[in-house]
């Protein structure tokens, strides 16, 4: 057994299998920065997945699929915006409803409407487009790291570019500053003439769209087959909600958070192979009960929360008005 090969593949899979978490997290951060707590990530990702599948496959184009998942999930996000921003509905309940509705819609289209949708792997352009690795010149030539981090499909890079661009947008642009003001103190922002409703709508739609791409990615990674009994998203939307806290509402830290969560997620599968490949140094991995791997990311999130609340100097970046509906007359 080639030790390096096992190790490289382990690192490679941390990225490939967990990038959807990054999309979900970045989307949620944008929405939360506007002051809305959207717990519907799972459902929005499911909607992005199913419409990305339908429209992408009918056009046999990966690009069309990505755009469709972005647009349809964004449109789906409007429901959340209308209910919570315009109609002032409770955000927690609306978010949970979005999850139930989105996952239900996924099953209705994927299993209810037709028992025999073809798999995504049957569409050559989509299959090749997703599986062909884009090697970054020079960097991909580095042993181990090159294959693990710089030789991925296009959606991996897109996710990271989006995360960095959103970080820049939130922290370095005037609109980003205004958005943060809306999330911190909408009353004050309103008095400065910022259109709160518009800001909230635009960013809920934008964030939902980004989540949708993540959902589409989950489907692509599973070959787009409906024969399993679970939704393609399978709980990743919920992990994304936890990751937002872990990343302290920073999309740049979300990249790191994705890798940390992904590390444990993938370690469970690779504990056996790694223990066998490196019996001396990593042999202990095989003895750890698998349930611990499944719990670790959440234990870490809890620790991060405790650490952040104890450490007074480090300010929690949670928007002050998160989860509160803004009603001008009550200002």
């Amino acid at each position, binding site marked *: *057994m080639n030790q390096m*090969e*096992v190790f490289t*593949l382990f690192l490679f*899979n941390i990225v490939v*299998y967990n990038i959807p978490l990054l999309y979900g997290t970045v989307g949620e951060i944008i929405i939360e920065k506007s002051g809305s707590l959207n717990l519907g990530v799972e459902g929005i990702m499911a909607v992005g997945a199913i419409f990305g599948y339908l429209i992408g496959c009918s056009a046999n184009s990966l690009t069309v699929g990505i755009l469709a998942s972005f647009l349809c999930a964004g449109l789906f996000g409007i429901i959340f915006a209308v209910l919570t921003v315009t109609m002032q509905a409770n955000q927690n309940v609306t978010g949970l409803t979005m999850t139930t509705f989105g996952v239900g819609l996924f*099953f209705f289209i994927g*299993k*209810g409407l037709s*028992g*025999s949708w073809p*798999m995504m*792997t049957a569409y050559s352009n989509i299959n090749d487009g997703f*599986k062909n690795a884009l090697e970054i010149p020079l960097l991909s030539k580095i042993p181990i790291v090159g294959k693990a981090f710089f030789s991925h499909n296009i959606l991996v890079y897109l996710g990271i570019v989006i995360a960095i661009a959103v970080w820049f947008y939130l922290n370095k642009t005037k609109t980003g500053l205004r958005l943060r003001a809306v999330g911190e103190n909408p009353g004050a922002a309103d008095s400065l003439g910022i259109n709160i409703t518009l800001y909230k709508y635009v960013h809920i739609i934008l964030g939902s769209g980004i989540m949708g791409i993540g959902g589409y990615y*989950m489907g692509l*990674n*599973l*070959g787009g*087959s*409906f*024969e*399993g*009994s*679970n939704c*393609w998203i*399978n709980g990743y939307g919920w992990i994304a909600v936890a990751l937002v806290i872990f990343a302290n509402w920073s999309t740049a830290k979300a990249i790191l958070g994705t890798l940390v969560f992904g590390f444990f997620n*993938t370690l*469970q*599968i*690779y*504990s*056996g*192979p790694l*223990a*066998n*490949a490196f019996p001396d140094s990593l042999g202990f991995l*095989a003895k750890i009960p*698998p*349930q611990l791997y*499944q719990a670790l990311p959440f234990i870490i999130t809890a620790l991060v929360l405790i650490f952040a609340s104890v450490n007074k100097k480090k300010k929690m970046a949670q928007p002050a008005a998160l989860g509160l509906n803004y009603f001008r007359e009550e200002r």
Partner: protein
Amino acid sequence: MKKVLSILLALVMVVLCFAACGKKDDAKTDEPKSDFLVGAVYINSQNDTAGYTFAHHNGITKAMEQLGLPKENLRIVDNIPEDTQQVSEAIDKLANQGCKIIFGISFGYIEAFAEAAEKPEYADIIFSHATGYKSNDKNFNNYFGRIYQARYLAGIAAGLKSLELGNNNLGYVAAWGTEYAETCSGINAFAMGAQAVNPNAVVHVNKISTWGDEAKEKAAAEALISTYKCCVIAQHCDSAQPQLAAADGKVFGCGYNSDMTAQAPSAHLTAPIWHWDVYYKLAIETAMNDPANFMSTVGIYYGGLKEGFVDISPLSENCTAETKAIVDKVKAMMVNGEWDVFTNEKLSIAKDGTITKTTAALKDNKGAEVISADGNTYFTYNDGVLTAVDGGKDACDGVIKGSMNYYVAGVEEG
């Protein structure tokens, strides 16, 4: 404007009233031909198009069709999680509708079914629980199958493929390992089948510790292919993801539950499959005609290849004609009751199909005897200590169904 709207709404309501009436009339004209009602509690949706619930639903409807029962006579409560309260409510609902036999398909329904069977008001209803281990002597049984026999045959196909490729490494993606006798006996039977044709075959088990996580099922198969260069990927999990990974990795595979050749035509060899309708037909027929003697005629059901309850899907084009001949021969031995997997008799099968039986103790992968050389004592681990199971030879089925917790020689987890 308001007037127009109210008139419109009123019109819509009138139309809806008629629509609702129409439905009722339809139901009335479709009087059931027989009044025998069958109840079923499902863990997933009855509209599933693949998977566990689908397999059972398909089995029940097929059995009812064969028995001439109209499909309206099947009453279903679906999407019921393994929660005793919810299952009990589902059972009450079905019992109130007049079902005379109620099936529960998921393991975790066990308590609710055991409780319901003891209720005096349900004494004339038969409760039948899949994969469980509880029963009573009046109206409550459990049913499962010797799927390990089919896994042994799949193991032979995989072993012959490994000989053909000159690669002794086989992979196995398992939801669980030695924690459950069901997964454990399946892994062992597969390994023993492979070793019957290729004594050097090693089965690497990658355990994902969860049911129904498709991404993990795929990742586990990829890890097996790259780490051990496995040439065949077998599976004990729900989706076809391991077979897709095998096709991507240009290796072969054995699916589970359904013929997965359609999903992975270039990789799939054969899959152990269930014919649930065989049991459902027997159970419903007995419940209809002779419910008083249900427990003495059907009783605790554990059907195998012989009953046609389990089988393997037709060997795909990735298998040779010789493979088919050998598999058929071994299958015939099990159908005749001439030989079975977990005994003190080991099969060695030459490439030309000659089968030699040798009598020897079965050893686990730590070298300990788990079936004695005379075949009369079965052992399992009890708190880490190898302990003989009471009952001698008769303990066999109990061990396979409930207490097997070791891997046979040649199986490695990790």
